[in-house]
């Protein structure tokens, strides 16, 4: 085991509950005081195929897993065939004796345990969890507490299965409590869902698409208790336009999709820009182009997000670096979208969406951005009134004696179509002023993170889910890690401060062309080298370390 940390791999067939078992292991480690990250890897199919999750617990904040593990929990032989080389010296294998064999491992007769409890095959993951608890030397009462909270149904039966497997297992390691309170773990999708609810979300709309599916599922599951509605329309086109209809009538709406779905939304993105309608678009990035690798990761939609749509209009583009930033910044995205009446694009990558992270409940952002509302004595109401800030005060129908119009055409202050050059120019400049105000406001929101060694002259530039792994390596290797969360309007001032004293820097991105490196080049920063990965998989800690050392040499 690496000092103070533990890594567990669980593998089996799709449909055997690998993801939920992995999440429960993450919760267990969280309760022992570890900071956790889970990577879940699955092909695009429903039953069969090979699924696995790697769960890592460590002392500090982490956002990546190592390629080597201390424990392998194998529900089938395929897991051992593929992953046995990952096992550390003195690593432990727990396996299902019905479907795998590993002489020095701990064999668990899952089928007979399930038979004794008259349980269905899908509960086999509870057996492997129970066996893991014993093998890792975790106290049963803690496991019982976590299991009780985690099992969605059949709690008693699942607990009995886990206990039987616990008895059949044996202690080989001691994964000890780190002290301090337990830290809750969430997927990025869940964290963004929490953030949206905190942001006053009224309606969430989505056409099902990986990797934001679980954001839809999370919000649908909690809709009634938090007073929102989660709606699944006929297409991404309908999704975004319905959200804009909500915005016109005064309800905060958000949509979730991935690159392919966002491609369909682009026409209406321009409508949001022109008609000045607020919306939050969660663009969960996966490996493209086209259908690409439907269930694997990439950071290849930054350029697309910044440039999507014909014509010119202001927009906000933010990319969270982990679940915590997913929660905090999506709320900022909603507030800023409403204050400046424009579309906000939120770009997690698939690792953040479906990966699991420790989330500190106390981490919040103290930034207030309220929508500008018209007074009831403003008559006649002009939806596109010209102001110094470019922000026209809002009203929503019905208002007696007022007409409230929004328009996809060039329009006058009242929202009526115009082709007059003077009005066209004045309106374009009004929209541009909003972007300037937004850029200024963002500079005050700590839009660029610096981690690792903040005084180092060698920098690593990254964004999105590479935040955690780069920060971790930056500490070890003495590198300054620069991670902008706000990407458009680009926070030039904050970025310059973050880069002050950096003599050379290297980009780390999960794409082919170094999209962030290209973006910062516009502002005069040229990367001295790049580490790029574009096979659908995230960097692993040891892998990136080698690559960084190589490129910096």
């Amino acid at each position, binding site marked *: 085991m690496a000092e103070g940390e533990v890594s567990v791999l669980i593998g089996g067939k799709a449909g055997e509950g690998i993801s939920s078992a992995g999440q429960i292991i993450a*919760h267990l480690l*969280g309760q022992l005081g570890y900071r956790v990250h889970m990577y879940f890897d699955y092909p695009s199919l429903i039953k069969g195929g090979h699924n696995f999750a790697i769960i890592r617990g460590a002392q500090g904040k982490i956002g990546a897993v190592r390629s080597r593990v201390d424990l392998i929990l194998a529900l089938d032989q395929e897991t051992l065939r593929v992953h046995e080389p990952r096992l550390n010296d003195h690593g432990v294998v727990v396996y299902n004796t019905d479907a795998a064999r590993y002489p020095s491992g701990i064999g668990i007769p899952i089928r007979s345990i399930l038979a004794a409890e008259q349980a269905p095959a899908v509960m086999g993951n509870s057996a492997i969890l129970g066996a893991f608890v014993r093998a890792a030397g975790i106290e049963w009462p803690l496991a019982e507490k976590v299991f009780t*909270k985690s099992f969605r149904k059949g709690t008693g039966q699942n607990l009995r299965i886990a206990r039987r497997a616990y008895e059949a297992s044996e202690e080989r390691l001691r994964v000890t409590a780190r002290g301090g*309170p337990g*830290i*809750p773990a969430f997927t990025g999708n869940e964290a963004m869902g*929490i953030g949206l*609810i*905190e942001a*006053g979300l*009224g*309606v969430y709309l989505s056409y099902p698409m990986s990797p934001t599916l679980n954001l839809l599922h999370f919000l649908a599951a*909690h*809709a*009634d208790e*938090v*007073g*929102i*509605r989660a*709606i699944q*329309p*006929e*297409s991404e*086109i*309908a999704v975004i*336009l*319905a*959200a*804009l*209809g*909500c915005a*016109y*009538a*005064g*309800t905060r*709406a958000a949509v979730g999709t991935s690159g392919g779905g966002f491609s369909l939304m682009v*026409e*209406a993105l321009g*409508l949001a820009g022109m*008609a000045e309608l607020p919306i939050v678009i969660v663009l969960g990035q996966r490996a493209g182009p086209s259908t690409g690798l439907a269930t694997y990761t990439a950071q290849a939609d930054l350029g697309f997000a910044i440039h999507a749509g014909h014509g010119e209009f202001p927009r906000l583009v933010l990319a969270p670096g982990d679940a915590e930033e997913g929660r905090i910044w999506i709320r900022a995205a909603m507030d800023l979208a409403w204050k400046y009446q424009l579309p906000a694009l939120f770009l997690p990558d698939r690792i953040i969406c479906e990966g699991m992270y420790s*989330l500190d*409940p106390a981490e919040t952002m103290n930034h207030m951005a309220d929508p500008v509302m018209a007074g009831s004595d403003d008559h006649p109401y002009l939806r596109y009134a010209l102001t110094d800030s470019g922000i026209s005060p809002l009203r*929503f*129908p*019905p*208002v*007696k*004696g*007022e*007409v*409230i*119009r*929004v*328009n*996809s*055409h060039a*329009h006058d202050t009242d*929202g*009526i*179509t115009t082709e007059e050059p003077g009005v066209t120019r004045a309106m374009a400049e009004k929209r541009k002023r909003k972007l300037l105000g937004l850029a200024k406001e963002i500079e005050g929101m700590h839009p660029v993170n610096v981690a690792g060694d903040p005084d180092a002259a060698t920098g690593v530039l990254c964004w999105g889910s590479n935040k955690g792994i780069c920060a971790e390596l930056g500490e070890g290797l003495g590198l300054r890690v620069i991670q902008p969360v706000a990407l458009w309007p680009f926070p030039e001032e904050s970025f310059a401060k973050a880069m002050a004293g950096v003599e050379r820097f290297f980009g780390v991105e999960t794409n082919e062309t170094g999209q962030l490196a290209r973006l910062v080049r516009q502002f005069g920063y040229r990367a001295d080298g790049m580490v790029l990965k574009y096979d659908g998989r995230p960097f692993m800690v040891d892998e990136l370390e080698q690559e960084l050392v190589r490129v910096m040499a």
Partner: protein
Amino acid sequence: MKGIDLISHAKNTWCPGCGNFAVQHTLKDLLAQMDGEGLPLEKVVLVAGIGQHGKIFDFLNLNGFYSLHGRTIPVATGIRLANPDLTVICVTGDGDSYAEGLDHLIFAAKRNLDITVLVHDNRVYGLTTGQFTPTSPYGYRGHSTPGGEKEVPLNPMELMLASGASFIGRGYTGRRDELKRLIREALLHRGFSFVDILQICATYNDLTGYYNERVYTWSDEDAGDRQSAYRKAREWDYSTDARIGLGVMYRHTAPTFEDAYPVPGEMTPGERDGWVARIMSERS
């Protein structure tokens, strides 16, 4: 309130004799009248598509959302989700709703979304200078089909019936009083109301004589009968010669989309914080 008060300051740019005038004036007179009968004007929202029909947005002083080509209905869906107290009228064209945005039309009917869709069906693309649309008659000659169009038209009445629309009617701009009664009924119907409005295009497709010779009024008595409705829908296929029925073709009562997704009570900020604290503690 008089209808004339609903005319905006925008300069009208329809061709002289355009069928859109009839829809505009019918709508303004009707809404002015209904304003005094429990449908206040400020609660009406017009959602317009792109095409000659869409200019009605500029010409009327009504709340409105001037959307994209083919995209009135999803916008209307959002408005109704946000505030079901608003009466939403989608004004669309035949290119707008039967071509580019056909999926939305079908799904709104399927969901029984409580809106009124008025299709300005002049059976030609006017603003783009006279190409065929999904309801142009077979053999229509336009700039894109100089040898005559080779597709048979879509029958929107049949399509809407099959899709689950709970109110289906057809009007004609040459019969304004009937049209006004029809739109009024459509507005008062609870559920998805669809009205195909046969309107002439004075420049590219002037079918005034053709329609005048063939239109007649359907009996309202069997409007609740689905089999009668199918028979009426198939009487004229938008291409071959037949009598053309006008009025309410089908009407029935069914639960609406809004019944399924009522506006929930909003949480206070304090309740929201409490919920977040709870979900965090459930994981600790």
